[in-house]
């Protein structure tokens, strides 16, 4: 059984395929530079409808985490770490994601993280690893 994946559309494809190039991307308001997430065709800060897709550093801060112990989806074996992370360029933009490469006991709210991607079919899920805890080697499976 496969992991449930996002339905790619013209509105979200830039986000879910950004990992193909190893970069995290967001929509940005052309007028006020606000990062817009989830993608929606208006800026919530200034109501501009002019926007562009930009790459960000991929660095983030751990804002909250939970270790899930119950199986909800047969293809995703517990336990695993679910987190809210705040994007370095604009901390009020958050992603719900997984933390990889780290034990529960090593997690500290506020710790710096870096993005990496798990590739499934045509989707690259951004996940995060604590900075300095060893990046995944090329060729290592997701």
């Amino acid at each position: 059984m496969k992991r449930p994946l996002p339905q790619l559309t013209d509105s979200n494809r830039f986000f879910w395929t950004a990992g193909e190039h190893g970069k995290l991307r967001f929509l940005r308001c052309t007028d006020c530079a606000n990062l817009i997430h989830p993608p929606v065709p208006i800026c919530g800060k200034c109501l501009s409808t002019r926007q562009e897709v930009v790459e960000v550093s991929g660095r983030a801060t751990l804002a909250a985490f939970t270790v899930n112990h119950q199986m909800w989806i047969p293809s995703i074996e517990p336990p695993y770490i679910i987190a809210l992370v705040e994007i370095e360029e604009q901390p009020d933009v958050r992603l719900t994601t997984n933390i990889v490469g780290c034990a529960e006991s090593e997690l500290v709210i506020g710790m710096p993280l870096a993005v990496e991607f798990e590739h499934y079919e045509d989707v690259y899920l951004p996940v995060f690893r604590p900075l300095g805890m060893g990046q995944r080697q090329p060729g290592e499976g997701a």
Partner: protein
Amino acid sequence: MDKYESRSAVTGMGMSEVGRRLMRDPLALTFDACLAAIEDAGLTREDIDGVCTYPGTVGGAPGISGAAAWDVMDALRLDVKFFNSGLEQAGQLGSIAAAMLAVSAGLCRHVLCFRTVWEATYTQLQRTGKVRYSGGGGRMGGDQQWRIPYGAASAANWIALYCSRYMHEYGLTREQLGQIALNGRRNAALTDYAIYTEPMTLEDYLGARIVSTPFGLYDCDVPCDASVAFIISHIDTVKDSRRGTGVGFEAVGTGNHERVSWDQGDIRYEPGLLGAAQMMWSRTDLRHEDIDMLQLYDGFSFNALCWLERLGFCAEGEAGDFLEGGARIARDGELPLNTNGGQLSAGRLHGYGFLHEACVQLLGEAGARQLPNQPQTAIATSGGGVPGSAFLLRKL
């Protein structure tokens, strides 16, 4: 203040049987509750001229919606002037506010409101192949795409994230949080329809299997089968109702000024409560010391904690101290909480149970669990991660 709340009241309440895997048609539960509420108000179906419910017809998770407004209107052959349903309301009790508005605007005299869940039976039907599981295989669209692919598939995960952040900020302990679950279980022992009534100790609570840290099994409410119904009547008709009295609405909060999002707003708290709480208080001269009991949404223990703070019963970050030892929120405490056991122990009546319990307590009809000092006021809330609502009620 001339306010819409003062133009209607609860004149009737009805509840079906409540249970795990009753294996009954959810429409049958619905009609049991609705007919009981109509009779309780001293009315007949010819008197009902409005129908409101939550959430009505929904796709994807039919266990959370056992009957739609149209089902009841058609089956009972109701002749109505106003009806509505939907998920996008101020919590489950937003449907009560809609009924109150219809009455206040002069459209209706008696609105039938109901909420039917049959999650326990629906899950059993899925397990035994009697209904087809519709959740697998497809790609995620809409808001779900941002969480489900990460295995963040349950509100237990999403709300556990807030709780973890709250614990980090304010030092809340599991022992303190657990007081909400222990209080609910103590109260449920006196509730004839409660699902979980056997005594629970702090050790039981702490030792239960972990669902999603910091939540253990007893931080999570129990899905069940049930229907709860109310009659919301014009205030002028209350004297002619069966009791000749009812439960009045002092103030209702249905506002929201937060992001409607599971992860983009203030992640220290369950979202969607603050606007409702502030709006409710802005529409009354009553203050915290005037409130005799609290019936606070507890789909998870932490939801009720969030309501305590968002309603201002304790200052930001101080709910842990407020809950310490559990005496303050007990039946005989200064602020009894969830006197039927709440959703954690009585069962997930999904918002409607809190209003029901507030009404039976205020009317002095709670039987074995009637509070020793007859309460005159109550707050009942609904929500659960979606924008919520807060109702300040008083005995007429």
